[in-house]
């Protein structure tokens, strides 16, 4: 591993990010879009990958590829060691107490579905309640609706206010003896709101209710400490935090995972199989049926190394600077309305423009090389709450620059000219 030497060069805890050097780590950022430099502002959908991760993936495929946990030969032992090392890296990244609490899954969606199917099975019935919030991604709504349909339990939704801030008093009122599970988004993908999840977990714990946190949008922006948060489950996606697609993580407290039935059946997750009955392996293998995304997991381990090398302090300072600059510059276009204005927020800005639908904005700014997301961002209830059919969303990563904010804002002004509005 050459990571350590790479780490020190980007920043020290007190220094600011050397943005040009960071950008050199991401080869795709040199892309020209119809002759114009790519301005990639769709990081909340998926983030770009540093060369360090790409190289680690190719090194695995070129030199180490083989199946894990079953071969007694050299390559399989190497692959198994690399895969388990990745698990350990993720454990450390989340500050989980034990590597057995790290289950590799396809992504946040699968992690949540795993809990809904496995934890939910047989534990919920009519009269029981699951509490979520008003700003959940569809992936933290629909699995619970499915569970409610099959179990007869009821879904309760903690409301938010017009700034996109959850109403803690209302949330507190929803909790009670009927509550069997709380599932909350840590950082909203469409509003950028950073929810006070530690406090919300503590409130649920007063009723001894297990809590799942959807960390898909938090992991790319801030350090995560599952012990400090006190949650029972934490879900994240590799590809949103500069790692590969197809790999994600479910952290589950060992005690919880141990008591849960398997999610899928197959190879890897068993202890013994006969036609009469099978017994299951302990976690995490119990939840990793079939050959996993071995390369993806190892790539995610490399991602964790890379992020820790950059340092969260400098990432967060730079992103907050991008966020406040973007909010300032967008406010110079009077026809733009920002959706969501929570005090604590990640570098995600949703907005609408008078007279131009978000989808048209997306097409027009693309002509200037700017990639933004337009639509409902898989949060249709959030769109309904704010009374908009769709928003445009610029989501920034630590490799974005203030100049790119300018390109976005100029492209938005160009949209007004194309539409003959100025």
């Amino acid at each position: 591993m050459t990571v350590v030497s790479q780490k020190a060069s980007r920043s020290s805890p007190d220094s600011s990010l050397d943005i040009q050097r960071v950008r050199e780590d991401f080869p795709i950022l040199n892309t020209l879009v119809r002759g114009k430099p790519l301005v990639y502002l769709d990081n909340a959908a998926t983030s770009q990958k540093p060369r360090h991760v790409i190289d680690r993936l190719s090194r695995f495929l070129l030199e180490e590829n083989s199946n894990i946990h079953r071969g007694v030969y050299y390559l399989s032992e190497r692959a198994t060691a690399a895969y388990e090392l990745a698990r350990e890296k993720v454990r450390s990244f989340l500050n989980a107490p034990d590597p057995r609490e790290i289950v590799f899954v396809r992504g946040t969606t699968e992690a949540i579905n795993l809990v809904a199917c496995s934890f939910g099975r047989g534990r919920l019935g009519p009269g029981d309640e699951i509490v979520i919030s008003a700003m959940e991604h569809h992936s933290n709504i629909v699995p619970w609706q499915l569970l409610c349909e099959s179990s007869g339990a009821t879904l309760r939704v903690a409301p938010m206010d017009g700034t996109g801030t959850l109403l803690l008093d209302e949330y507190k009122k929803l909790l009670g003896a009927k509550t069997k599970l709380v599932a909350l988004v840590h950082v909203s993908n469409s509003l950028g709101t950073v929810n006070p999840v530690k406090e919300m977990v503590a409130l649920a714990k007063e009723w001894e209710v297990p809590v799942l946190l959807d960390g898909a949008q938090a992991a790319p922006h801030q350090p995560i400490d599952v012990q400090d948060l006190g949650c029972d489950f934490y879900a994240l996606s590799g590809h949103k935090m500069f790692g590969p697609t197809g790999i994600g993580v479910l952290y589950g407290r060992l005690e919880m995972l141990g008591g849960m039935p398997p999610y899928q059946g197959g190879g890897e997750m068993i202890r013994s199989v006969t036609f009469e009955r099978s017994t299951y392996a302990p976690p995490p293998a119990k939840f990793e049926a079939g050959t996993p995304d071995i390369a993806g997991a190892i790539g995610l381990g490399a991602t964790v190394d890379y992020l820790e090398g950059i340092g969260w302090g400098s990432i967060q300072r730079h992103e907050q600077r991008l966020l406040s600059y973007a909010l300032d510059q967008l406010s110079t276009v009077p026809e733009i309305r920002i959706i969501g204005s929570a005090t604590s927020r990640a570098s995600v800005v949703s907005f609408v423009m008078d007279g131009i639908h978000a989808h048209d904005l997306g097409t027009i700014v693309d002509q200037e090389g700017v990639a933004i997301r337009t639509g409902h961002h898989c949060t249709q209830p959030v769109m309904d709450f704010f009374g908009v059919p769709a928003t445009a969303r610029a989501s920034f990563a630590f490799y974005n620059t203030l100049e790119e904010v300018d390109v976005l804002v100029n492209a938005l002004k160009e949209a007004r000219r194309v539409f003959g509005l100025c």
Partner: protein
Amino acid sequence: MLDVRDLYQQTILDHNRSPRNRREIDDADRVASGNNPLCGDKVTVYLKIKDDVITDVSFSGSGCAISQASASLMTTSVMGKSSAEAEQLFARFHAMVAGEHQGDCEGLGKLAVFSGVRQFPARVKCANLAWHTLRAALEAETKPISTE
């Protein structure tokens, strides 16, 4: 060279700003609704039909400029046409915006302003939505149609 102004031609912008036949028909013979889940475009088409001729057509809905202008121009194009003629027009329109070959715009009249859409594959659904919904109304399908 791709030019966004080929997509957003004046006629399209005009129909987006001032849509024609954007109203509900209370005593419509056929009504169908369509949506494009990707961007949230919604269109409902209302038809009055007599002896297989579209005697009145209107739409309601919301969405991007392409979807709304397309709905507006669809209504002005099929007014007074038979259902077979309307189908034929859709086939030509579809060939122009999404066909394999650069279709000609003959017989499409004002609908030719949508010829730029073919350069923007992500927007073909927006242009087609009103037409798919019209077809559903003509076929008297009652369930909402979706472009996904």
